[in-house]
């Protein structure tokens, strides 16, 4: 069963091409991640599916309903959580939830079962004004409000941006349980590490869908060897490597520098000896499995070259 069908959708604003001929299908009860940097077109695609904007060309369907024509019906069955916190700051947690429940023609009690898991965490603060909540709690409240009418499809625009690591982890846990209820979840994120938590991901860049696949398959598409290097002066090491190899193949990842060994030109031993000779006595090099981020950067390079 298909929940979301996007067919050749393009969206052009006055000056920018936000979406360029995108097609994608999301299965029912799937967590589908839209991964991409800022300005990639994630929000535009989500807004088209939420009936908030119209595509310039192409068609989008949600649960068999046309996003442009049947917007009234779609608005009854989706839960949408916009990128920026958009509940009412001057209303308390409880009042916000009650308000959105009644707007969707339901009550908190009726679907309490569904939101319980999330709401239980913020319930101790139910008298507090929404504007005074922390980032993570705000997102949980917003999710509760988007869920209160038991939507068939949940569209979440960067729900974990600006949220601490623990809350992010909890948030994804919640999404997993919602999926078990049969809710289709379309979620966007700029964090690559979250991609692995999705059932399938679409990598989006410059308005183009570059790859749609299982997170594990995307990693399999990475055909090169990958080294992780670390020394006491990573900055100098990075500079050195960029001079020595193709600068695009060198990326810094936290404590490590990742080097793509394109066409297996190098061997660890030779590289290590070379670097020791060049003033990196404590260099450590190991071969690693690529992460989704490596794949994404590689894919991005593919489009820009």
């Amino acid at each position, binding site marked *: 069963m298909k929940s979301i069908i996007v067919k050749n959708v393009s969206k052009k604003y006055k000056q920018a091409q936000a979406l360029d001929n995108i097609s994608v299908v999301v299965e029912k009860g799937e967590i589908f991640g839209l991964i991409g940097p800022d300005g990639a077109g994630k929000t535009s695609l989500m807004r088209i599916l939420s009936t*908030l*904007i119209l595509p310039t060309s192409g068609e989008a369907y949600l649960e068999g309903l046309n996003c442009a024509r049947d917007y009234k019906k779609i608005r009854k069955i989706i839960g949408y959580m916009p990128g920026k916190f958009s509940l*009412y700051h001057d*209303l308390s947690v409880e009042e916000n939830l009650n308000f959105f429940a009644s707007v969707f023609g339901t009550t908190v009690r009726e679907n309490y079962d569904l939101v319980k898991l999330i709401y239980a965490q913020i319930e101790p603060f139910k008298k507090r004004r929404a504007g005074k909540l922390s980032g993570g709690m705000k997102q949980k409240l917003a999710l509760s*409000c988007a869920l209160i009418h038991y939507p068939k499809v949940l569209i979440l625009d960067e729900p974990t941006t600006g949220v601490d690591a623990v809350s992010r982890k909890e948030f994804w846990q919640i999404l997993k349980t919602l999926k078990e209820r049969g809710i289709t979840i379309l979620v966007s994120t700029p964090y690559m590490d979250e991609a692995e938590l999705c059932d399938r991901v679409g990598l989006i860049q410059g308005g183009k869908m570059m790859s749609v696949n299982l997170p594990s398959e995307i990693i399999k598409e990475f055909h090169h060897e990958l080294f992780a290097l670390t020394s006491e002066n990573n900055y100098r090491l990075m500079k050195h490597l960029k001079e020595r190899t193709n600068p695009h193949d060198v990326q810094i990842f936290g404590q490590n520098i990742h080097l793509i060994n394109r066409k297996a030109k190098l061997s660890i031993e030779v590289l290590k000896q070379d670097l020791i000779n060049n003033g990196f006595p404590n260099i450590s090099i190991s071969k690693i499995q690529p992460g989704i981020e490596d794949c994404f950067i590689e894919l991005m390079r593919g489009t820009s070259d």
Partner: protein
Amino acid sequence: MKAFIQFLKKEFYHIFRDPRSLMILFAMPLVQLLLFGTVIKTEINDAEIAIWDKSRDISTQKLTNKILSSGYFKLAKIIQSEPEIDTEFRKGKIKLIIVFDYNFDKRLTNEGKASVQIIADASDPNNATILVNYVESIINDFLRVKNDMNIGLQPQMRMFYNEEMKSVYMFVPGLMAIILMLISAMMTSISLTKESELGSMEILLVSPLRPAQIILGKVLPYALLAFLDAIVIIRMGKNIFGVPIIGSRLLLFLETLFFIITALSLGIFISTITNSQLVAMMISAVALILPTILLSGFIFPIDNMPWILQFLSNIVPAKWFLIAIKNIMLKGLGLVVIWKETLVLLIMTVVLLVASIRRFKIRLE
């Protein structure tokens, strides 16, 4: 329907939790009414004057008494010499000085004319003119009584509908127009654009609520509060300042309600033009509040304006509202007379509402 009631409830929470909204809604009308009603006045009460009586006879004494007992003037100083005139004016308290010439009574009885000089502080020209006119009319009156005869034509002036020329009669209707404009148009346009600015409009749009429900839910609380303010202003005007309501109260309230709806549709229209609270406020202030003060005939008579402003005043809703409610309150006239003004307001409302509905977006763009 339940959703709509919740929506109203939410809107009242917004209003009652925002100190600034509360100030504008409840404190400002009262303060403005008291300010306009007591401080800003065009009529004269107890203006301080000085008298230099060189003659000191029975006629000057009688005339002085008559002037002082008029209630308009208060004797602050008796002066004795020429230089004192200048020093007293410079002190700034005394607004007018009356100088009776020598042998006032004698010359008046024998020659039928005598000299009295009225010197006014014209640094406030309006006030000076009014004071001089008052003194003149008192002196004329004195002469008529004294001579006990009619000297040719004596005009008898009466100011109908506001016999005592009380400025508060003008201010109460004018103030109502301003306050209603402020609350109904400015506050609603701000509150509607606030939803767009904060992003909550996105969620409201992606909900089964109809656009009409969203607008009505945002607007109705302000309409109610504006009407409440109007009633308070009318009652305070009557009880504190004695502004009469000669005509039908029902008609007065209906006309007020009507003006509120016109102002609300203006507010809705503004919110369809912009998505920014600040812009909405600026448009309301410049395009609505200022014309309501300047072009409605509230402070400056429309008949004295250049033709272009007179022409422009026709599109100011407050102008028509003021004509209508003054006719009801002060003249006691009915719908038979003010149907034209009511019709103008009705047409304005319909045009604005249709334009707003056509412009209201069911999507974000």
